[in-house]
């Protein structure tokens, strides 16, 4: 289950990052960095499940924060339309929030 959650997070993160290459290179780099968080979560699987949960939770929070700020930025710049990159960003934001809430339950 954890592997599946991590893989979806990684796939969504990198896909959205790639979709923004032409629009905003620095934002792409940010998403790329945040997508590395679940990647390291996969590596931590062999050490501790709790550490993996930490990666899922923090990766989700970071994706949520980055996506929300970018959406606000797009709305403010009147460059907002429901194109593929933006839809992907929305999915990433919602997924990030969801997995962060789920993973938080593992901790006190």
């Amino acid at each position, binding site marked *: 289950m954890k592997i599946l959650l991590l893989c979806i997070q990684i796939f969504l993160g990198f896909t959205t990052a790639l979709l923004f290459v032409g629009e905003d290179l620095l934002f792409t780099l940010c998403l790329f960095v945040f997508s590395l968080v679940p990647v390291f979560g996969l590596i931590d699987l062999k050490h501790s499940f709790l550490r993996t949960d930490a990666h899922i939770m923090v990766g989700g929070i970071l994706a949520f924060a980055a996506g929300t*700020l970018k959406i606000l930025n797009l709305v403010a710049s009147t460059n907002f339309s429901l194109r593929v990159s933006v839809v992907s960003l929305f999915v990433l934001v919602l997924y990030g929030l969801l997995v962060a809430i789920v993973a938080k339950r*593992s901790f006190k």
Partner: protein
Amino acid sequence: MAIKVALCGNPNVGKTSLFNALTGLRQYVANWAGVTVEVKEGVRKWQGKQIEIVDLPGTYTLTSFSLDEKVAREYLLYKPVDVVVVIADALNLYQGLYLLLEVVEMGVKTILAVNAIDEARKKNVELDRYELSKHLGVSVVFTSAVTGEGIEDLLNTIVKVASLPATQVRVNYSEDIEKAIDEVRQSLSQIELSEMLSRWFSLKCIENDPEIMEFVSNRGVKIDFSVFKGMGEKIARQKYDMINLILKEAVKKREKSLNVSEAIDHVLTHKYLGIPIFLALMYLAFNFAFSTVQPLTDAVEWLFTAAADLIKSTISSEMISSLLADGVLSGVGGVLSFVPNIFALFLILGVMEESGYLPRAAFVVDRIMYSLKLSGRSFMSFLLGFGCSVPAVMSTRGISDPKERLVTILSVPFISCSARLPVYLLLASIFFRDNAGTVVFGMYALSILVSISTAVFTNKILFKGEPSFLIMELPRYRFPTAKNIVLYLWNRGKHFLIKAGTIIFAASVIIWILSYFPARGDVSHSFAAYIGKAVSVIMKPFGFDWRISTALVFGVAAKEVIVSALSMFFGFSGTISFAQDLSMQISPLQAFALLVFVMAYVPCFATLGAIYSETGQKRWVVFTVFYSLLVAYLLALAVVFIGGLVL
């Protein structure tokens, strides 16, 4: 008669929050150690008594080495108070009780305030107040500065304890230490000290505390301190053994598995991910502050332009309408239109600070800083520099090594403070409209690079120093409260608003007078033009004309004045707009050189004053002025030269 109370405790246990709750004041608080570097005072009336409360800087022990820690100890030693309230974190009593034992050993009336009790309950940590009080021999109060719990109880206890005689609490050490204490006490008998204080001085002598040793030696007492070698560690160990025994009785339930704070730390302070995450978050913060908030900035700018047009159309006197529209509104409005950006930046930084993330940033960059002969503690001063260089320079008091402290003082002014921000935003929005956020972020990144390079240079050339180790207690993560964020925003942003109403207003009027006279409106033959033309000779390589040169001269008073001056000099005639006039005068490359020059050149007067007061030597002020001018000139020259080759 007033009751004098001192609040002391480890860094970041909520002393200032408790001080605010007790006094009703609004001192700046943050979720990281070292915020209070000086003594703050407040008054509260309670049960008909006047209680004078003093907030001391955080300290772990009373054997202190950094300047802020020394402030706390010296206050307790030389300015006797009626009651000392030792504040300890409910989730880190182990460290807090060590300080408490040191305080009670001085023989002063002491109260233990166990703060953040609400957070302890949330984490299922139960504390037994009776057991704590019984074993420590002092009154214990459970408080929460956030919810206000226990504040009245604490005030009642202060009044009660102040009226009672001091209880003599003694920590019993092993036989060899007690014997050593007795020997030193006999030698100290010629100095007039109370029984408890004489024991405390003896302990500090045995611990080889340099200041106490000097104090004793200066009074003609001859003690061979070398015989006590290693006893200091033994005393500390025995105190901690005692604390462990007390906590075993008083803490009913302990945490066992990973908590949320530890889980977040596992990722945010990760060996490989920590720094990239920090950089990415900083980029997002700057992008939010400069791009997302832009419509608000445009709206404020429009308001000022509309007001200026209204004045010009309604006031018949050409001179008065020019003073109000071209002078005051153009100068002050040019700066105030960036208020949304500045508050947005502080909002994001406030959330990062309040949540407890910023100390982690210092922790993750410590390895890099150490290789540059600095510690993460210097990085905290650099972070403060994003707000204002003056408190950043003052915050270096927390750095224990004097050389490292001086290196940080000399490097911090290069960090882009909020005063430089309007200049960046103005030029970036005119010359790099589509990439304004990235350009401003780049300026901030460059300012960090220049600061660090300066630190390396000064350390290597002037001091050849080694850095001190970073010992930092990472605060727990917490959700920032709206109240604290508003307080943070106001404390940081109000300086900007006050400056706009005072220095920038006055500077705008002066600049208008210098631009209007003697040619009555012909700015190219004004006093300002004469000043600028003299300075512009050295600015020739960058292609800056007299107007930009004059703006840079006035910018030494406060960096925002550059915006006021540019707003007045360009588009003064009214035939073309300010932005059009400026973009016709300089190319984007020259604009970038100007940005770089503004980023690095002479800090404002207030910062120079802070450098003088912190170093106590004029030569460091002179060094800062000439060094920053040289760096700014060389960097701007490099931009023009390299840019000329590339473009």
